[in-house]
């Protein structure tokens, strides 16, 4: 795979670390809603198709990227800095 890092340009898979499903939202830190925390920590949509996920360019600029990628073909549909998506 080749992941187009918004800073570094397209880079080889070997430079990246997968950081998991990006469909989850961390509950309000003050919340004690266990089902919300359980969903955040343990539940996955595990999409067969376009999947929102985080990758860190750990062997490059170290930015976390929010990537949409097909889990059927590995085709990357979009990439953005995770910071910008998280805001």
């Amino acid at each position: 795979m080749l992941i187009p890092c918004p800073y570094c340009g397209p880079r080889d898979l070997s430079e990246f670390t997968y950081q998991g499903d990006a469909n989850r939202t961390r509950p309000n830190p003050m919340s004690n809603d266990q089902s919300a925390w359980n969903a955040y920590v343990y539940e996955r949509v595990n999409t067969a198709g376009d999947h929102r996920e985080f990758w860190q360019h750990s062997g490059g600029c170290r930015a976390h990227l929010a990537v949409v990628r097909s889990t059927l073909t590995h085709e990357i549909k979009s990439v953005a800095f995770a910071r910008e998506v998280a805001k």
Partner: protein
Amino acid sequence: MSPRRAHNGGRIDRSTTLRFTFDGTAMTGHAGDTLASALLANGISVVGRSFKYHRPRGVFSAGIEEPNALVTVIKGKLREPNIPATQIELYDGLAVESQNRFPSLAFDFGAANGLAGNLFAAGFYYKTFMGPVAGPLKGTRFWMFCEHFIRRAAGLGRAGHEPDTDRYEKMYGFCDVLVVGSGPSGLMAAKHAAATGKKVFLAEQEPEFGGSLRWKSAAIDGRPAADWVAATLADLAALPNVTLLPRTTVWGYYDDNALGALERVADHKAHAALGEPRQRHWTIRAKDVVLATGAFERPIVFPGNDRPGIMLAAAAARYATEFGVLPGERIAIFANNDSAYEAALALKDAGAEIAAIIDVRAGVSIAARELAREAGGELLLGYAVTNTSGARRLREIEVQAFADGKVKDGATRAFAVDCLAVSGGWSPAIHLASQAGHAPQWDEALQAFLPPAPTQPWTGAGAFTGAYSTSAALGDDIAVSEPEIEYEPAPVFEIRPTGKKSGKAFVDLQHDVTASDIRLAHREGFQSVEHLKRYTTLGMATDQGKSSNVPGLAIMAAARGLPIPEVGTTRFRPPFSAVSLGALAADRHGHFKPERLTPMHDWHVARGARMYAAGLWYRPMIYGTGGETVEQAYVREAKAVRASVGIVDVSTLGKIAVQGPDAAELLDRVYTNLFSTLPVDKARYGLMLREEGIAFDDGTTWRLGEHDFLMTTTTANAGKVMQHLEHYLDCVWPDLRVHVTSVTDEWAGAAVAGPNARHVLEACVEGTAVDNDALPFMGIVRGEIAGAPVMICRLSFSGELAYEVYCGAGHGQHVWDALMNAGQQFDIVPYGLEALGTLRIEKGHVTGAEIDGRTSPRDLYLDWMLSKKKPYVGSAMVDREGLVAADRVRLVGIVALEDRPLQGGAHIVERLGEEPRGSIGHITAFCFSPALGKYIALALVKGGKARHGQRAFVSDPVRNRYGPVEIVSHHFFDPEGSRMHG
């Protein structure tokens, strides 16, 4: 009669003679020979024995698809098994051995297997060897007894036990266009792409470029094809934007046009040049790929089709034309298409006699008839080869009339020949395309699978697309003169004589899979392609079924009464052809992981430290002096610390600069305890959890300024903690203004510990006081040691008065030397990890053995660190029922009640019985405690504190150590901490 060198012809250099040995016999060949051509030139017919029946086998092809002629290449002590003789370039001194024969190639005991052929039919081993259900051979024993012999009989070549000391390397290549294959279409594709200024790679798996043009008779632009190739290559080589890669096999097509390619750099030489790798593994990133991988000729399946002397027609022609070798004196051709007629003529031109051309078709093209006439020999249309004979080499073929896909009853004709050149049509080499495409498409006219629709940006050219002729490969602009033959074969894959008992008809020559094996699989219901493959092992040999896949499929289709495409094809996966493991490991072969060294590494080694691999780091374990055991060494070192002073290298601790106005806020969120209240120039011990409420890492964090913290982590978790922080900053809290930077390598660290630690510092630190007022517990000061700036924090892992002295890594050795000098008067002792561990165990401090990814802070009695004033990572889940359950294992101390060592990983039980049962926990860390004079340990035990004072037993069956212990508090030594606060 046997194969021999033709009197003239071929592109070999007859003026250069090269010596080689085959099974120890000295032979010669010429520059430009492959081992296969040289063996044929030396009259060698039998090159190997087959996998299952150990039948004698000869050279069958001239290329990478070779199923039979596999040998082991010997270089010094190194063995390289299973290499097709067709792929080995001859060099002076080459030594090879034949394989899978005992005691010799000529006489092989294993050939007895062939006598019981029906017993060893596909799947036989699933139906037997289960053994008796009771008695000494019950269970798996009988099978394992039989397996022992089966394993010895199976297998092909023998690999060596010597480490391979050759170099392998990696190379990354980037291009606009990668052209795979350098036959006519590949050369044209490269030429066109290069002309537009694109950066072009042209990869050819053979040593020479040109593909089929090297042995075909076509004339291009009025000159011999070989001349056209030479001219085109010279043009390409002169262009700066073209990279030519001979001996380079593109073997894998991965996502986003990343292709794996193996370049055999020095395999064709007796010795690699200095620094030159044996093989180079390329990852090529191409914007576009042109697959010009050509096609493989297919055999026809008929009884006795495996005898030495039977080979593919184009291969026979290639030996004659390219290598000046006659595969036989008197040759018959057996075909279902026109291409073999070209081969017939080439063989005749090289000096062979064509005995007959046997074609299953009733009629052939005018061009084919013309070729047959020129080649001479009888043309038998509507005939098929139905049997062969000859013990070690083909002597005779039997021919019968053939029509409507069937052998006609009637007279048999025999031809005495020493070579049979067979062509069953062509299969495009769609392997790479299949790795990067959908399902292949069956073409009824060509009786072949054509390339699939791509899923990645590649295009195809030439024979790969089913356009087999040279003119089609070169395009309309170039004049080609070649016979106008028809490549469409008759749909005949197998010849099945009726009535009489005939020999085995092989589909997969290397794995000895016969046509009747395929029909047996059909009978037993193994009818899907994958079941067929797995049940019979069809296509699973080293040639990966390059020539056997389609005939195998066709036979199954016939048995099922279905058209071939409905039976399907198997998907080709990487690699296209076998790739050495060394090349794939590349520079990591012999350099598996880099070594991470602290600034004081050389000093430790010079002082006789026994080094310990801690992840990628090396750390001193003990500084053993002559004759000391490990235990004696660490006890001596630990005692010295408690008695006076010791020094330990702590440079490997992870260090992260946490900077910015929100740095304290970040720390409050990731640590369970508060950091925003920490004053400048003070440090605090912190604990991090994972979101699940499980302990993750611990360490001290130093506040160097209002917005400036230095976080330390354990050595093992440095990288993980860094990613943890980066993840939260990028993905969860992007509004925090904090920068984190790894500064592990910026700082050298030395911990000075012991009652005299302060005196040591007083003796060498300048620019700051280090007394209790200036430097209280967890205080930080800055100064200089021997002119180098240092930062000193008073903190203790050992329970002693202790300081961590940090300086720039490049000053590390300098400062360490100064500390050692200053400590000389106090008999300062350097100590290693074992003593460090001993000191911390005595204090009951936890490390990675206790924070093992399963323990909660409560398990470790670190509840006091869980702030109630703020949320933190893990706070929401740390109270779940499973994490507060009464039966969890919790931290305790263990004291051996006998004077015998305890060991890590030993279990704790309440009572000892006949069998080890009833574990209530395990020992995480152990030592002989010089402070207590006993063997002690930390352990995680069910119930934890509630068991203090209880008697229990250590149960360590894997080391056969059992004995009484007492469960105590994990704070063994100086629980009030009076020493470190002193």
